[in-house]
C-alpha cells in the first residue's frame, strides 16, 4: 500500500528532506551467499551488442532531415560580449538557423570561463555548421580572470557560503595531545573524459519534444527541460538506451540540449548538438582542484584527539562545492573535529560530480595525514586505523559496517611489506601503503519497475533507467530471474526511454543498484504471486504451498508444472507485476566501506613511479554480479591511478585558457600502466537496507587509491608526496627534500 513519508534523500553526499510516496517493502531478504543466479558471475546482457558494434548510442542516431549544430564557445576565461552579429553566419552555405545569448538561457554574453557557450548555428552538415561559427562576429571586452582559488577565498569570492562543521572542543584537545601533525595537501583538476562526448538530438513532434541524450539521469533531464520550457513533464520524452560513459558529468541536460531544442524549434527539423573532444574537455566540468590544510592530534597510544581541516575547493565559475571535508567528519571515531570548506569562485570550468566527488580528494589528504601521524607515533598504520574505528557517524548508527572485517582481510596484503621492500633493487625502491574508504551508496526511493510475463514464458523487466556502462542492466535481469525462478536468458530488459517505463533513479552516487534492484525484485515478486494464483486454480493446489523454481511451478509436496504450461493458459493476456523501492531505514547512516593496499616501485634516479599491485577489499552489502563488480573495482582503481600519477588539466596562469584539452596532452592511463589488481568484496547483505541488502559499488573503489599509492611511495622512499599528480619532477623534489631532512637529522649541513 502506498504511504506518504518524510524522509532524507541522499545523492553523492547531498542531503535533502523530501516528501515521498513509498510502497512498503514486504519481501524478506534472501539468505546471504550466492543464490541460483544472484551472487553468481553473469556475462553482461548488453555485452554482445556493445562488442559487435550493434549498440546504438546517441552519437549513432541519424534522424531523417536532421541538422547539425555547432557552438561558439568563449575563447576567454572572463569576458563580456560588447557586440555580436550572426548575420554572416546565417548567410553561410547550408546554414538553417543561428541563436545568440538573447535567444537561449544556456547561452551567455558574460562568459566566466573558457568554453562557456555564447552562440550556436544549425546547418545541413557539421562541417557547414563549424564553418559558420567562424563567421559569427563578436566584439569581446576581455577582462582579467581570477584564477587563484586561495586569492578568491581570501577575497570572499565564494559560491554560496563557506561551510563549517564542529564537534567537541578542538582547541582543548589540541592542547592535551601528545603528538600533533600538520600538513598541506593539494589535488589537481581532473577531467571525466567520457568517451562518448556530451550530446543530444532533439526533435519536436507537435507540442511534444523528444530528447535523445547521452545521460546518467533520464528523469532529471525530463524535469529540467520541462521546467525550463514550461512544458508539462510528460510532453518531454527522454531516451538513452546505450551510453558511452559519464562518471558524474552527465547528470543534467547541458547547454547543448537547450541549444538543440531551440534550433529544432526554429527550423522544424531534428537537431543534433554534439561536443567535440576539445569542447568536452573545456565545457563539461571536472573534479576540481583542492588545497587542504590538515591537522591531526593524538595521544601517545594512538587515540585520535582532534582532526582539523581547512579546505579550499577551486569550484570554478558555477560549480558545486563537493564535500571534501566528508572523510574527516565521518571516517574515524574522533570526538573533536573542526572543518571549514571554502568553495572558491574562479574563472575556470565548473566542478561537476566526478566518481565520489569530494571524498576522493578528502581521502587523499586525510589518509596521508593518518600515515604521517602513524610514523610520528611509531604505530602501525593499519593498527592506528583499527584503534580509531568509528561505531557511528554524527550520532547515527550504521545500517551495516564491516570495515573491521575489511581490515582483517587486508592484513595479509599489508604483511607483504617486508617481502616487497626486500625486492628493492638498484635505483628501484619498493614499498607498501594502505588507505581506508568511506562513501555513501545506499540509494533510495523513488524508483519503480514493472515485470511483464507473457504466454511464451519469458519475462520482461521494464523501467526507464539508464545503464551507463556499470552493468546495471545485467544486475537487474539477474534479480528478476532469481525471483521468478527463470534462467537469465529468459529475462529481457527494456530501459532507456521515459515513454516506455516508470520513473527510475539517477545513475550517480553509487545508487542505481541499491535504488533499482529492490524495485525490480518487488515487481518480479508481484508477477510471481499472480502466476502462483493462476497455478493454484489450474492444478487445484493451495497457493501457499506453491513457488517458482527452475522454470517450474513447484509445490511443497513434490508437484511440478512447467512455467510455460501455466503462463501458456494466458494466450494473449499478460501478467504485469509492479514494484517500488521502499524507504531507507530511519535514523541510520547507510555508507560503504573499504580498504586498499598498494605496492609501488619508485626509481629514485628518474622519479618514475610504477604501481605494481593493488589489493581492494570493500564492504558494499550483497553482491549481485561478482564478475561485473570486479570490473567496477578495477575501473575505479585504474582511474585512481590516473588521478594519482598522470592526469592534470593545465591552465595558462595568466589567461586561464586550458593548455591540454586533448588526449595526447591530458594523460589517461593506458593498458601498459595497469598493476595486478586483487579484488575482494565481503558480500555481506545489509540487513536493514531493502529487500536486497545491496549498496552501490561504482564509486567506492576510486576513493582510497591515491592515498594508498602516496603512502606506499613514502614507505618505499621516505619522501613526502602531498600533491597530485605525483609527477617525476615532484617525486625527485620530494626525494631531495627527504635526503636533506635526513642529513639535518644526522647533524650534517643540508645540501644546497
Amino acid at each position: 500500500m502506498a504511504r506518504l513519508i518524510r524522509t532524507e534523500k541522499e545523492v553523492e553526499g547531498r542531503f535533502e528532506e523530501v516528501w515521498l510516496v513509498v510502497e512498503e517493502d514486504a519481501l524478506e531478504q534472501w539468505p546471504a551467499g550466492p543464490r541460483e543466479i544472484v551472487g553468481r558471475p553473469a556475462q553482461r546482457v548488453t555485452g554482445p551488442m556493445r562488442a559487435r558494434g550493434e549498440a546504438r548510442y546517441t552519437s549513432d542516431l541519424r534522424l531523417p532531415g536532421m541538422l547539425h549544430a555547432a557552438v561558439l564557445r568563449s575563447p576567454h576565461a572572463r569576458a563580456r560580449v560588447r557586440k555580436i552579429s550572426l548575420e554572416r553566419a546565417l548567410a553561410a552555405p547550408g546554414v538553417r538557423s543561428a541563436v545568440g545569448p538573447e535567444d537561449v538561457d544556456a547561452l551567455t554574453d558574460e562568459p566566466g570561463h573558457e568554453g562557456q557557450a555564447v552562440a550556436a548555428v544549425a546547418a545541413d552538415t557539421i562541417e557547414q555548421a563549424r564553418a559558420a561559427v567562424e563567421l559569427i562576429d563578436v566584439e569581446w571586452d576581455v577582462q582579467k580572470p581570477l584564477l587563484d582559488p586561495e586569492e578568491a577565498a581570501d577575497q570572499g569570492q565564494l559560491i554560496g557560503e563557506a561551510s563549517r562543521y564542529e564537534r567537541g572542543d578542538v582547541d582543548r584537545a589540541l592542547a592535551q595531545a601528545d603528538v600533533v601533525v600538520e600538513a598541506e595537501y593539494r589535488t589537481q583538476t581532473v577531467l571525466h573524459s567520457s568517451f562518448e562526448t556530451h550530446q543530444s538530438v532533439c526533435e519536436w513532434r507537435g507540442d511534444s519534444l523528444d530528447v535523445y541524450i547521452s545521460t546518467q539521469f533520464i528523469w532529471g533531464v525530463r524535469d529540467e527541460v520541462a521546467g525550463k520550457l514550461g512544458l508539462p513533464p510528460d510532453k518531454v520524452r527522454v531516451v538513452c538506451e546505450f551510453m558511452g560513459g559519464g562518471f558524474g558529468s552527465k547528470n543534467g541536460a547541458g547547454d547543448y540540449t537547450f541549444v538543440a531544442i531551440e534550433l529544432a524549434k526554429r527550423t522544424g527539423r531534428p537537431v543534433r548538438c554534439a561536443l567535440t573532444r576539445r569542447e568536452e574537455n573545456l565545457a563539461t566540468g571536472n573534479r576540481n582542484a583542492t588545497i587542504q590544510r590538515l591537522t591531526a592530534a593524538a595521544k601517545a597510544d594512538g587515540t585520535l584527539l582532534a582532526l582539523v581541516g581547512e579546505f579550499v575547493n577551486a569550484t570554478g565559475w558555477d560549480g558545486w562545492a563537493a564535500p571534501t571535508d566528508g572523510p574527516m567528519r565521518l571516517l574515524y571515531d574522533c570526538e573533536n573535529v573542526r572543518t571549514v570548506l571554502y568553495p572558491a569562485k574562479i574563472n575556470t570550468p565548473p566542478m561537476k560530480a566526478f566518481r565520489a566527488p569530494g571524498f576522493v580528494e578528502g581521502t587523499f589528504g586525510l589518509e596521508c595525514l593518518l600515515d604521517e601521524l602513524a610514523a610520528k607515533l611509531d604505530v602501525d598504520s593499519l593498527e592506528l586505523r583499527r584503534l580509531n574505528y568509528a561505531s557511528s557517524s554524527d550520532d547515527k548508527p550504521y545500517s551495516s559496517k564491516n570495515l573491521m572485517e575489511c581490515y582483517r582481510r587486508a592484513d595479509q596484503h599489508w604483511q607483504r611489506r617486508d617481502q616487497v621492500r626486500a625486492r628493492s633493487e638498484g635505483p628501484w625502491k619498493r614499498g607498501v601503503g594502505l588507505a581506508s574508504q568511506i562513501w555513501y551508496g545506499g540509494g533510495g526511493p523513488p524508483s519503480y519497475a514493472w515485470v511483464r510475463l507473457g504466454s511464451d514464458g519469458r519475462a520482461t523487466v521494464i523501467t526507464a533507467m539508464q545503464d551507463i556502462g556499470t552493468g546495471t542492466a545485467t544486475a537487474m535481469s539477474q534479480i528478476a530471474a532469481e525471483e521468478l525462478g527463470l534462467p537469465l536468458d529468459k529475462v529481457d530488459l527494456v530501459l532507456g526511454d521515459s515513454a516506455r517505463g516508470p520513473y527510475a533513479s539517477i545513475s550517480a552516487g553509487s545508487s542505481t543498484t541499491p535504488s533499482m534492484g529492490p524495485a525490480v525484485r518487488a515487481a518480479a515478486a508481484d508477477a510471481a504471486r499472480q502466476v502462483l494464483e493462476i497455478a493454484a486454480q489450474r492444478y487445484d493446489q493451495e497457493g501457499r504451498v506453491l513457488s517458482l523454481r527452475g522454470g517450474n511451478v513447484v509445490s511443497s509436496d513434490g508437484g511440478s508444472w512447467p512455467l510455460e504450461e501455466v503462463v501458456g493458459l494466458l494466450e494473449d493476456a499478460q501478467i504485469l507485476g509492479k514494484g517500488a523501492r521502499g524507504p531507507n531505514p530511519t535514523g541510520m547512516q547507510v555508507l560503504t566501506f573499504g580498504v586498499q593496499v598498494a605496492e609501488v616501485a619508485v626509481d629514485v634516479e628518474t622519479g618514475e613511479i610504477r604501481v605494481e599491485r593493488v589489493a581492494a577489499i570493500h564492504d558494499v552489502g550483497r553482491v549481485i554480479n561478482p564478475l561485473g563488480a570486479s570490473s567496477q573495482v578495477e575501473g575505479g582503481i585504474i582511474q585512481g591511478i590516473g588521478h594519482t600519477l598522470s592526469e592534470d588539466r593545465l591552465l595558462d596562469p595568466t589567461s586561464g585558457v586550458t593548455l591540454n584539452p586533448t588526449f595526447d596532452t591530458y594523460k589517461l592511463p593506458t593498458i601498459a600502466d595497469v598493476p595486478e589488481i586483487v579484488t575482494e568484496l565481503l558480500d555481506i547483505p545489509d540487513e536493514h537496507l531493502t529487500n536486497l541488502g545491496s549498496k552501490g559499488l561504482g564509486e567506492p573503489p576510486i576513493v582510497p587509491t591515491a592515498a594508498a599509492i602516496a603512502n606506499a611511495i613514502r614507505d618505499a622512499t621516505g619522501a613526502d608526496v602531498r600533491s597530485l599528480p605525483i609527477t617525476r619532477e615532484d617525486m625527485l623534489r620530494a626525494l631531495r627534500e627527504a635526503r636533506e631532512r635526513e642529513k639535518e637529522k644526522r647533524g650534517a649541513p643540508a645540501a644546497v
Partner: protein
Amino acid sequence: MPELTINGEAHEVDVPVGTTLADALRDELGLTGTKIACAEGHCGACTVLLDGVPVYSCITLVHMVDEREVTTIEGLREHPLVDAFVRTDALQCGFCTPGQIVSASALVEGNPSPSSDEIRHAMAGNLCRCGTYPKIEEAISTWQG
C-alpha cells in the same frame, strides 16, 4: 570517387574530398560500429583494419585509401575475440570496445598467443576510460577458448 572493399564488399563512396574514413563509414555506409571519441587520432576508438593493419580511421582520409581493403567491427562480428570480450567482461560502457577488438584481431592474426608484454604494447594505443584493461588482457590471452 574512392572505391573501397569494406568487409569484403566493394563500395564507391561519394563524399567531398577531406572526408575521413570514419565519417564515410558511419555517415555514408551506416557502419556505426566504428566509434569516434576524440576525432584526432589520440584514443583508438575508431580503429579499423586497412589491408589488415590497424589504423585510426578518424585521421585517415577516405580519398587516400582508394582501392584498399577496410575491415571494421561489422566484418569481425564472428571473430572469437567478440565472445572472449563478452565472456571476460572486457567492456563497460562499450564505446571503445569495437576499436579494442579490431586492434586485438590484428595482434592475434600475427601472434595467436601473445605474452602480457606483447598485449600491452599492441593495445596501448586504444584507451579505455572505464578501465577495462585487466579484462581486455584476459580476453586476448584466452581468445582461443
